[in-house]
């Protein structure tokens, strides 16, 4: 029994470390990408001197900068909740990587209720944000926190309903199952089977709604009201500094990567590329997935540096009056299509 | 007088308007029209300006402190027959034409109060608060006559001529310095030169 337990425990920690390392590496690259691309959009140069050519070490330098800054806790802050908030939010984001398949056989833990777990865990970060907003003892953080709470709850629903439609079409809740469903050929032209990722085969509405909802989930423009620089200085993050602030900063970008990973797995076919055999995919899978993640992250960055932010009552109206009816219609349509074909 | 002034030069406009509200006198030199009114006709004149003469645009309200001896800057022109007073000026103009007047009234210094124009012009509130704190004139009927610019703990009224400029008391004026004399000759004319020609009324500094 023990013989079996030790390698399993070792094997699990190894897998978690790999997943964590991959995720952290991708997050640092994403931070660099946001700095570089936003600069070029604004005809600036962006990171340049740090780490020689192209400023590749800029995110590392920022992390070190935050480490050596003093992270103070305001006097009238609610002490324990204030210290715990960033870790609750980060945990909620990192936990989603457990379920995302990186290759046909490479996945941290292949749960057969993958999507359900995904949504349950990602709403944990809402809790972290509310804790931060309430406990900072600062009026602006309170307003930022409450705005975040209302926004995240309002956009949880379209997220869930969009994924329901995917589950209906794929017939399973497990993510590897969904990727496999996208890999099976839909129809045949001559001998070769053509198989399409869900975004092309009927889930386009779900894809668009999911992108909008994940933008709101991540508090990114046009929905960055909780951290509205020009109104609430930094929203619920105002009182944080040093290591705790970098946790929030990391949490935001890790959230971006995790949402991008979920979108690419569920809608763009995850690690799968047409024409690659399974064992080849074992090695190339992660790179394909990361490529798709970078594309989705480019979308997020592109939207942020082009559009303003909207007011929170417009934001709520968008969610309740537009996104939710759309996703309901999407579920009905997918179900009927599923039955007909 | 509801129709437009007879000939719409500033003088014509001033003449008709002054006659209509029974002003003491009016002047229109440098084509800036001043209409002098006694204190009790102040609000009536403003209302007449807004309703009859169509001067609805509230430009500004301020005051000039006429004082004999002056702690700051150059004294007035003919100091001896100068009447010590606060002259409150309120400029009213029309938003679409070029016609405008400056309503002026004189308050003597120890009884400096005036009726507030906030009932006639909404924009007068801040201007009156500023004039009140800068000159110490009391505007009766003003909704909240508290400090506008200065911190609440500030005593004194800065724009009065008796209020000296702090910065110029502290730092000696670099301009008073002059060329140091030869050790042998004591040049009377040079000493005199450094004594009197102060372009500004800075304190006398000894040439170092």
């Amino acid at each position, binding site marked *: 029994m023990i013989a079996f337990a030790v390698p399993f425990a070792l094997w699990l920690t190894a897998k978690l470390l790999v997943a964590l390392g991959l995720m952290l590496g991708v997050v640092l690259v994403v931070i660099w990408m946001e700095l570089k*691309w936003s*600069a*070029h*959009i*604004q*005809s*600036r*140069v962006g990171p*340049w001197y740090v780490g020689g050519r192209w400023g590749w070490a800029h995110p590392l330098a920022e992390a070190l900068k935050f480490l050596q800054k003093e992270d103070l806790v305001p006097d009238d802050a609610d002490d324990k909740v204030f210290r715990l908030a960033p870790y609750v939010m980060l945990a909620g984001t990192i936990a989603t990587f457990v379920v995302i398949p990186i290759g046909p056989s490479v996945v941290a833990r292949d749960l057969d209720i993958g999507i359900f777990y995904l949504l349950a865990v990602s709403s944990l970060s809402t809790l972290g944000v509310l804790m931060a907003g309430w406990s900072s003892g600062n009026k602006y953080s309170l307003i930022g926190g409450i705005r975040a709470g209302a926004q995240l709850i309002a956009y949880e629903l379209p997220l869930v309903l969009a994924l329901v439609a995917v589950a209906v079409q794929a017939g399973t809740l497990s993510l590897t199952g969904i990727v496999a469903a996208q890999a099976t050929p839909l129809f045949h032209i001559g001998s070769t089977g053509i198989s399409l990722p869900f975004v092309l085969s009927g889930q386009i509405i779900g894809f668009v709604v999911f992108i909008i909802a994940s933008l709101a989930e991540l508090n990114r423009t046009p929905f960055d009201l909780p951290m509205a620089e020009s109104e609430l200085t930094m929203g619920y993050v105002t009182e944080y500094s040093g290591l705790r602030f970098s946790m929030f900063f990391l949490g935001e970008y890790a959230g971006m990567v995790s949402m991008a990973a979920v979108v690419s797995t569920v809608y763009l076919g995850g690690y799968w590329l047409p024409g690659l055999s399974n064992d080849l995919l074992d090695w190339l899978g992660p790179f394909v997935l990361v490529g798709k993640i970078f594309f989705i992250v480019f979308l997020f960055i*592109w*939207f942020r*540096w*082009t*559009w303003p932010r909207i007011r929170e009552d417009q934001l709520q109206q968008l969610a309740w009056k537009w996104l939710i009816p759309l996703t309901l219609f999407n579920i009905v349509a997918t179900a009927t299509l599923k039955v007909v074909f | 007088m509801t129709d437009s002034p007879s000939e719409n030069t500033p003088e014509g406009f001033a003449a008709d308007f002054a006659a209509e509200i029974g002003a003491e006198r009016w002047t229109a030199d440098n084509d800036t029209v001043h209409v002098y009114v006694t204190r009790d006709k102040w609000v009536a004149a403003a209302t007449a300006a807004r309703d009859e003469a169509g001067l609805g645009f509230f430009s500004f309200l301020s005051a000039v402190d006429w004082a004999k001896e002056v702690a700051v800057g150059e004294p007035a022109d003919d100091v001896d027959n100068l009447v010590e007073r606060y002259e409150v000026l309120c400029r009213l103009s029309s938003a679409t034409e070029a016609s405008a007047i400056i309503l002026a009234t004189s308050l003597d210094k120890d009884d400096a109060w005036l009726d507030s124009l906030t009932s006639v012009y909404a924009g007068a509130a801040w201007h009156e608060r500023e004039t009140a704190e800068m000159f110490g004139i009391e505007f009766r009927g003003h909704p909240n006559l508290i400090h506008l610019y200065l911190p609440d703990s500030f005593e004194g009224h800065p724009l009065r001529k008796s209020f000296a400029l702090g910065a110029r008391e502290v*730092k000696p*004026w*670099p*301009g008073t*310095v*002059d*060329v*140091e*004399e*030869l050790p042998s000759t004591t040049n009377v004319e040079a000493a005199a030169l450094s004594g009197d020609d102060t*372009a500004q009324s800075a304190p006398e500094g000894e040439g*170092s």
Partner: protein
Amino acid sequence: MPIPGIGLAKGLWLTLKALFRKPVTVMWPDEKEELAPRARGVIALSTDNCTSCMLCARECPDWCIYIEAHKVEIPTDKPGGRVRTRNELDRFDIDYGLCMYCGICVEVCPFDALYWSPAHEYGEYKIADLLHDKEKLVEWLGTVPEPPALEK
């Protein structure tokens, strides 16, 4: 009524095009922009023109020019000639921490002792170092450019 999303889409297209255009930043320490000849960067002093008449110190609104001078006898060539004196500058400081670059001193100087120079890289860590003394001001004379040609 234009199509609802057209404004947003045009914005996106614009930012995408901007992404691939060359940035305009001048990387300051390595690349330097060429300065306008009339730019008012720093005031240069030529001590031989200056007769320490104190006009600039008096006219300066910020009181930031400090001058000290003393009279010096000029040796006459023929014996018994009239002893003439000349002003010798001891100290001529401009405190750039106070100066607002209005240029009244340069304009009012009757002996062309003060010149404008576009040099602007004299930032300091301590504000006291912004008080440039006579030698520093004479150094700046080297950076005074030729006045630009005029529009015909």
